[in-house]
């Protein structure tokens, strides 16, 4: 399958994630849109790794494996990020009884 299709699919997913972060105000849904963007990038990395493997397959059987290792590390970092973020949201909810990110304005006082 041509690499273009994967590029445009990932772009569309990423931009939907960006639009979601900009439009929604619930902090948890913003986190979910961030996950969406991370997954778009992961899909693009895997597609490029397969493309790289196809291009360099002649002399180098392990070409393109770096991309999949990077995807693995992105997943690790995303899991840690989500756990910390949800803990912060729970603490914020305990203080303000809402998950509206607008309430975070009061952090500046």
């Amino acid at each position: 399958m041509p690499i273009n299709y994967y590029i445009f699919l990932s772009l569309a997913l990423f931009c939907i994630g960006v639009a979601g972060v900009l439009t929604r105000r619930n902090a948890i849904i913003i986190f979910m849109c961030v996950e969406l963007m991370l997954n778009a990038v992961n899909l693009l990395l895997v597609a490029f790794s397969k493309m790289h493997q196809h291009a360099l397959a002649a002399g180098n059987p392990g070409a393109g494996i770096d991309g999949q290792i990077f995807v693995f590390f992105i997943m690790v970092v995303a899991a840690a990020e989500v756990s910390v973020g949800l803990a912060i949201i729970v603490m914020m909810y305990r203080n303000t009884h809402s998950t509206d990110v607008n309430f975070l304005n009061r952090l500046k006082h």
Partner: protein
Amino acid sequence: MALVGAILVVISKNPVHSVLWLIVVFMAISGHYILLNAQFLAIVNLIVYAGAIMVLFLFVFMLMNLNADTEPQKNKWLKIAGVVAGGSLLLVFVAALKNADMKNQLAVMNKGEIGLIHNLGMALFQDYVVPFEISSVLFLSAMVGVVVIGKKD
């Protein structure tokens, strides 16, 4: 299917429905990984994202007793501005990449062995041992941080 699911994640009013649509998106992305013969990543995506992280999100939703009524209201113009900003980002990317010269670059489907567990494990534990250990330290510090944040003070 991934695109429809992703749009529904953003527009659904009820947060629980949003989580369920996000699971649909992750299933579709895992399907793409399997098509690209990256089986390890497909399984890890299903287990870690669609399993663990989504259960965590659902658990937090249940804990906070959120539903569509408690969804914070916001300005309509701000919403339109967000959609326009996302759409124009997409437009810029598409315009920039439309004429890129990669018509003959293929992402090979259904063959190649780099996505199998054996090869990924060899690369991970031979060339990438140090990042692997650092990520384990990152996990440990994240765990400690979550406990410290979540503790009642």
